[in-house]
């Protein structure tokens, strides 16, 4: 999961404002490269507020027209699943192969399905 990129920053040593010491808070930046595509995590940066986060994201992540839209989310608001629990979290999906089209036995002469 890409958005875990900077989550470990959030493990308890942040002040309520999301900044440590005098640091500006950390923001996660998501960029839509063109209309029709999802916003994708690009990385993170520090900024004093949302507007500055977007301005900085433009300079840091879109110097070559990499995006048409930017989302900025303060990192402390991103919640992530715990990788240690991955096996139990995703396990129930493991034995449900019937959710995939290839599970079904059908004759070769069946067309357009």
């Amino acid at each position, binding site marked *: 999961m890409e958005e*875990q*990129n900077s989550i*470990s920053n959030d493990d308890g040593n942040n002040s309520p404002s999301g900044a440590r010491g*005098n640091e500006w808070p950390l923001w996660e930046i998501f960029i839509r490269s063109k209309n029709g595509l999802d916003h994708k995590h690009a990385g993170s940066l520090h900024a004093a507020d*949302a507007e*500055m986060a977007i301005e900085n994201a433009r300079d840091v992540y879109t*110097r070559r027209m990499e995006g048409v839209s930017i989302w900025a989310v303060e990192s402390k608001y991103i919640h992530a699943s715990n*990788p240690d629990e991955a096996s139990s979290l995703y396990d129930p999906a493991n034995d449900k192969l019937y959710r995939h089209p290839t599970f079904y036995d059908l004759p070769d002469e069946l067309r357009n399905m």
Partner: protein
Amino acid sequence: MHNQEEEKIFLDKIDKEIKIEPKDWMPEQYRKTLIRQISQHAHSEIVGMLPEANWITRAPSLRRKATLIAKVQDEAGHGLYLYSAAETMNISRDEMIEQLHSGKAKYSSIFNYPTLSWADMGAIGWLVDGAAIMNQVPLCRCSYGPYARAMIRICKEESFHQRQGFEILLTLSKGSEAQKQMAQDSINRWWWPSIMMFGPNDDASPHSKQSMAWKIKRFSNDELRQKFIDVCAEQVKILGLTLPDEKLKWNEERKHYDFGEINWEEFWNVVNGNGPCNKERLAARVKAHEDGAWVREAAAAHAKKNPRPLKGRLATV
């Protein structure tokens, strides 16, 4: 909470080329090695802006000036990608900057050499960015996810850096005798420090082996250096210039160029703070940081009191 089970899962991922992500368990030494490497890499990008910034106001044409500004701006971006990759390992930006300013953290020694002529912008692009690219391309496959992703972005941007440098040298090499001489002089000064960028010889590089085992590094210092020398020895012919090494000679048996002895004493001298510009570079960084303190404080205070409403709107509403 370190136990053998976790270590086994970690090594298994490394073995299967599954990336390690920030919240995954990792050995303390892996974390430390990466923090050191990524932050030093970030510092190099930032300090690396200084030698080139020196020539922005004196670039010989508007085209060259625009190019140089764009390149230096890219290097700032590279520093930022890398700082945020390092921050995923629970070190703060302030801490890293403090380590740079106190001299605890190093940056690439190459940036402690002065830029004496316009031709140096060419030699830096061709040789310094060239050596950096040679080092960085394999890092795109580094086992640590955030570092690898930052490197992919950086490598995409680097190729213009090297090409614009070569173009500067090519133009000078076709110019007057004085211009040609300026280009040769610049190559003479930058060649040896550039091949030192790959670091000490393999047998003098104790951490390399572990880094290779953890797939942080993919090739040894000497392998990458040889590859770089082989490439440059051919490219320099296009310039009609030479590399300053009398022992540089194609070895048919090895299928590589042989080359002369590197002056490691000079290398360690510069690493340890005694290069021509170490003090100047660090002083420039510290001054920039201190001069910017009031801006950082003012913006933070203002945002706390009165966050600027976003011009757009909430993304999902």
